[in-house]
């Protein structure tokens, strides 16, 4: 009740995650130029300033770097940076919601560990 049905993330975060995914999946390679903010703006029908905000998040994390007058490029070792960053965020992003839900259902820590073990066995079969 009373909940909003569409739950969306901020667009600039989605833009930065999309580029990160492309780097992880080798759609964008190291030392390769990424689309400009204007290209991203026209592709997704968003304001260029928002696209730039997403790009700047990646520059701040060292995933992209700027070549003056040419554009933005994927840094060397970008993949490792993304993996490391996502590992750091893992607990906050996934464990927190998992534990809140487990808590509201009265699932104990032991039960949770048993579930994880059972699931990883099933996954490998």
């Amino acid at each position, binding site marked *: 009740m*009373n*909940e909003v049905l569409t739950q969306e993330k901020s*667009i600039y975060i989605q833009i930065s995650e999309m580029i990160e995914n492309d780097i992880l999946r080798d759609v964008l390679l190291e030392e390769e130029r990424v689309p400009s903010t204007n290209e991203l703006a026209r592709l997704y*029908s968003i304001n*260029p300033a928002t696209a730039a905000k997403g790009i700047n998040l990646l520059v701040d994390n060292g995933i992209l770097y700027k070549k003056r007058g040419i554009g933005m490029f994927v840094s060397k070792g970008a993949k490792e940076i993304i993996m490391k960053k996502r590992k750091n965020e893992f607990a906050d992003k996934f464990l927190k919601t998992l534990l*809140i839900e487990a808590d509201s259902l009265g699932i104990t820590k032991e039960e949770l560990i048993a579930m994880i073990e059972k699931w990883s066995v099933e996954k490998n079969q």
Partner: protein
Amino acid sequence: MENLKCENVKKIYGKKEVLKGINLELEKGKIYGLIGRNGAGKTTLLSILSAQNPASEGNVTLDGEKVWENQKVIDHICFSREISPMSGNGQNTLRIKDYLKAASIFYPNWNKELAEELVEKFKLEKKKKVCKLSKGMLSMLTIIIALASEAEYTFLDEPVAGLDVVARDMFYKLLLREYTKSGRTFVISTHIIEEAADIFEEVIIVNQGNILLKENTQELLDRAVHVSGKAEDVTASIEGLKCCRKELIGRSMGATVMLRPGEKIKENASVSVQKLNLEKLFVALCGEEV
């Protein structure tokens, strides 16, 4: 060219105060979204900003120069208004090409090639009389005039009204193309808020003749949250925060909260915290109890 400034602008029609002292500064090189309910004063504001309508009080200036009856300044402003299929004494029998011709004389930076390209893109027939156009086609014509005017300040009043979803998408893409090419300033009013929200760098909300807020769209959305759950739990988690709307059903409560810098909702298992979209936020801010 500098910013377009509006100082304490009032508009009074008879006894009705339509604009109640508007202070607004439009920076060069941004796309602004102008949203507000029917009768909020959006069109009146745009017509005063573009000197098509005199203000009852207050000043509008561009680069420090008055806009009213100042040709030098008006040359930089285009307010492409809704075109009526009726004229004073019957049907509007002017043709599309007549409108384009008039616009080419009126706007000093008129881009004829762009206008031709857009006529073709929207599949309009230039010989067609305006009274024979559908609502969507009339919108297309106002869009073509606005984009091809190449005016530094371009205002569009509900440009997507009557357009089908494909044509609307085309408009957003064309707008971004022109914007990224030229860095012109656009002010666009719309009721289809959600669709256009991502295009707007800043959003201006007009409510009952006042500016309710003017803020970077993404920052505004980042600080608007919806909290729901058991009424006591919701009340406890939003204590001290700015709540702009509450809804109750039985023991359940939903609250729309605008966070100020540094504020956070205390998240716990008993309440759900969700992001809001611009449309939902607008209803929370300007909606009325039914």
